[in-house]
Each structure stands twice: as C-alpha cells, then as structure tokens.
C-alpha cells in the first residue's frame, strides 16, 4: 500500500499515456481529455505543500524567536493577505486587476519592481564573473572570450562603429556554432529525459517516493 501501489499508479499511468499517443482511438482521446482536466487540479493542490512548508518554517522561527525572526512576518502576512485580498477583489488572468486595488498594488508596485531589480542585480555579479572567466589563459579561454566579446559588441550601437562586419559576425556566431553546441547539448538532455522518463515509469528511479512513512 505504501510503496507498491504508488509505483503501480506511476507505471499504469505512464504506459497508458504513452499508448494513447500512438493509438488515436476515441477511448484514448477520452482518457487524454480526462487527464487534461484532472492534472491541473491535482497539481494545484501541490501548492498547499509549498505554502504549508513556508508557513511551518516561518511560524517556527517566530515561536523560537530565531535570528531575524521579525522578517518572518513580512513573509506570512502577505502570504495569507494576498489570497484574502484577491477574494475581496477577484483577480484577473492578466496578473493584476481590472480596477486598481491593494492586490494589484502589491503585485505591480512591490513584487514586479523587486523581482526586476533582483534580476538586474545579477548584472553586477555577472560582470565580476566575466572578469574572472574572460582571462585569456589558454586557447579555449581565448575562444570563449572572443565569442562573448563579438556577440556583446554586436548587439549594441557602439559595435557598428567598428563596421558592419562586427554585428554580422556576432549574428553568425549565434546562428551557427552556437546553435551547433546548443543542439548537441539539447540532444543529450533529450536522451537523458527520455531515459529518466522510462526509469520513473518502470520503477527503476524511486527517489520521488521520498521518506514519507517509509
């Protein structure tokens, strides 16, 4: 019950879904339609796990008065406040609201600027990483440096000052050797994914069972 049944569910579900792809019969189409309806519902409940864990960690921090416990309120209050606000002003799919509200305000003027700034913060760190990575210590490192410099300069107006050849070469690098490397990596990843899919379906890979209840 604890291990065999979940493994059976995986195997039956997996084989059924592979078969339905190759046998386009009315029954297989119905199975797929049910799956398409049910899967998002089941997956949506998984969010409860994440929210539950987050709540547990932060409420534990507050109870124990652990280091920086005050900030846990900054997680918990909006965590439960946002759904309540969304219930008062039903949220729209556009990521905001049809009319201004606190829900919309928190999303547009707190979450969006903070997230955008966090990503832009990486510009500083990536620059320092580039300084370390782009030292022409060997032929391969020089190649990496040249490719990166040509692509970077090719994308900014100053690149055109060196002549049309620079942006064109940058584009050529992106379109051909870059594509070759990406394609090889993607093929490798693809084969890896296929192997992992089969390993999970046939119960060879069982890490997903975790340690719950042993």
């Amino acid at each position, binding site marked *: 019950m*604890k291990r065999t049944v979940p493994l059976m*569910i*995986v195997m039956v*579900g997996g084989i*059924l879904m592979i078969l339905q792809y190759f046998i386009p019969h009315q029954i297989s189409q119905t199975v797929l339609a049910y799956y398409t*309806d*049910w899967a998002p*519902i*089941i997956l*949506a*409940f998984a969010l*409860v*796990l*994440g929210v*539950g864990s*987050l709540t*547990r960690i932060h409420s534990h921090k507050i109870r124990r008065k652990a280091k920086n416990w005050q900030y*846990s309120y*900054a*997680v918990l209050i*909006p*965590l439960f406040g*946002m*759904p309540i*606000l*969304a219930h008062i002003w039903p*949220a729209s*799919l556009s990521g905001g609201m049809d009319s201004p509200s606190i829900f919309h*305000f*928190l999303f547009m*003027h*707190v979450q969006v*600027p*903070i*997230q*955008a*700034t966090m990503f*832009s913060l990486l*510009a500083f760190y990536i620059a320092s990483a580039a300084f370390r*990575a782009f030292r022409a210590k060997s032929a*391969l*490192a020089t*190649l990496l*440096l040249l490719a*990166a*410099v040509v*692509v970077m300069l090719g*994308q*900014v107006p100053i690149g055109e000052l060196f002549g049309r050849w620079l942006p064109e070469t940058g584009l050529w690098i992106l379109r*051909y*050797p870059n594509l*070759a*490397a990406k394609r090889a990596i993607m093929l*490798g990843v*693809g084969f890896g994914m296929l192997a992992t*899919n089969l390993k*999970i*379906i046939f119960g060879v890979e069982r890490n997903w069972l*975790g340690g*719950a209840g042993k």
Partner: protein
Amino acid sequence: MYETIGIWVGAIFTLAIYSFLYKENSIYRLAEHLVVGISAGYGMAITYQITIKPRLVDPLLSGDHWILLIPGILGLLYITRFIPRISWMSRYPIGFYMGTAMGVGFPLTMKARVLRQLEGAMVPLYQSGMAWYEVTGNVVMILGTLAALIYFFFSKPHKGLFFGTGSKIGIWVIMVGFGATFGFTVMGRISLLIGRIQYLLGDWLHVIE
C-alpha cells in the same frame, strides 16, 4: 495619486534591493522576505481563481460533475504529508501526476528534443543563391553538432582520429557556444539594469525623458 504612490513604493524597494551591493542590511532583508510572501500569496490566489474555482469548485457546486471528486480527493491527499502517521498517502497524487506526466512527456520529448533537433541539423550544405557565409555556417553547424556530440560521448575513450579529433573540435565548438551564450546573458542583464535605471531616473525622478 494611485500611480504616484506606486512609483514611489517601487522606487524605494528598487533602492532597497540595490543597497545589497554595499552590504546585506535590514531594508534589503525586508524587501527579500516581502517578495517571497507576496509571490507565494499571489500564486495561491491566482491558482485558486484560475484552476481550483472554475475547474473543481464551480462544477462540483453545480451538482452534475461528481467525477471531479476523484482529482479533488487525490489533490487533498497531498495534505497528508503534514500528518506523519499517514504521510505515505501523499505518494498517490504524486504517483498519479508523475506517471501520467512522464507518459505524456515521453513522445513529446522525443519529438521536440530529439527528432526536431536531428531534423534541424539535416540541412543542405549548399543551394543556389546561398551566400558563402551561409554555406560555411551550415558546414560549421553540421560538423560542429557532430563534434560536440562526440565530446559528450563518454562510453569510448577520446583517442584516435574519430573520437580524439572529434572531441577536440567538439570542445572548441562548445566553447564558442558558451561564450556566445554568456555574452547574450550579460547583455540581457545589462538591459534589465538599464530598465531599472530608467525607472528610477525617468518614472520616479523625471531627470530623463
């Protein structure tokens, strides 16, 4: 008024995040915790509004879609994870989702990540009207893909003409690819930074147009 307060709040949080460049501080930590809470809360609200309510709650309340109780109960089994004595029951919804997702994903992965890539690599080296750099590019792309694949083939030692030379060319192609990707990423981050500076100097302080 609403927009003005919003821009001020956004600008203050932007500066709060940038304050991390000096050193970690309480304002940065507050902003960091707030964004975690808001995005998780936002995720919960949106998931309920676009999935749970229209796909489960409303049809069940209408009274003629009792079959939806199956995914509903399966989904609720996730919660057993928090009750140690019956936490093993959370494996049922995970198993259902894992199995079906792997099954659905198998042919799609084969198509998108393998067959389409192979198809994309099989291009004519030369056709009338092609410029010389396109012909060179096609040669580089086809041989480069093969060479990079040889580099990633670890079942044979990288020695000899085929595996030895092939893997050497492969690593050169991969390095060019990594360099280009790195350059591309740097430019992406820089453009985000420019966007934030424009927000601060334009939308907030009105120093620039």
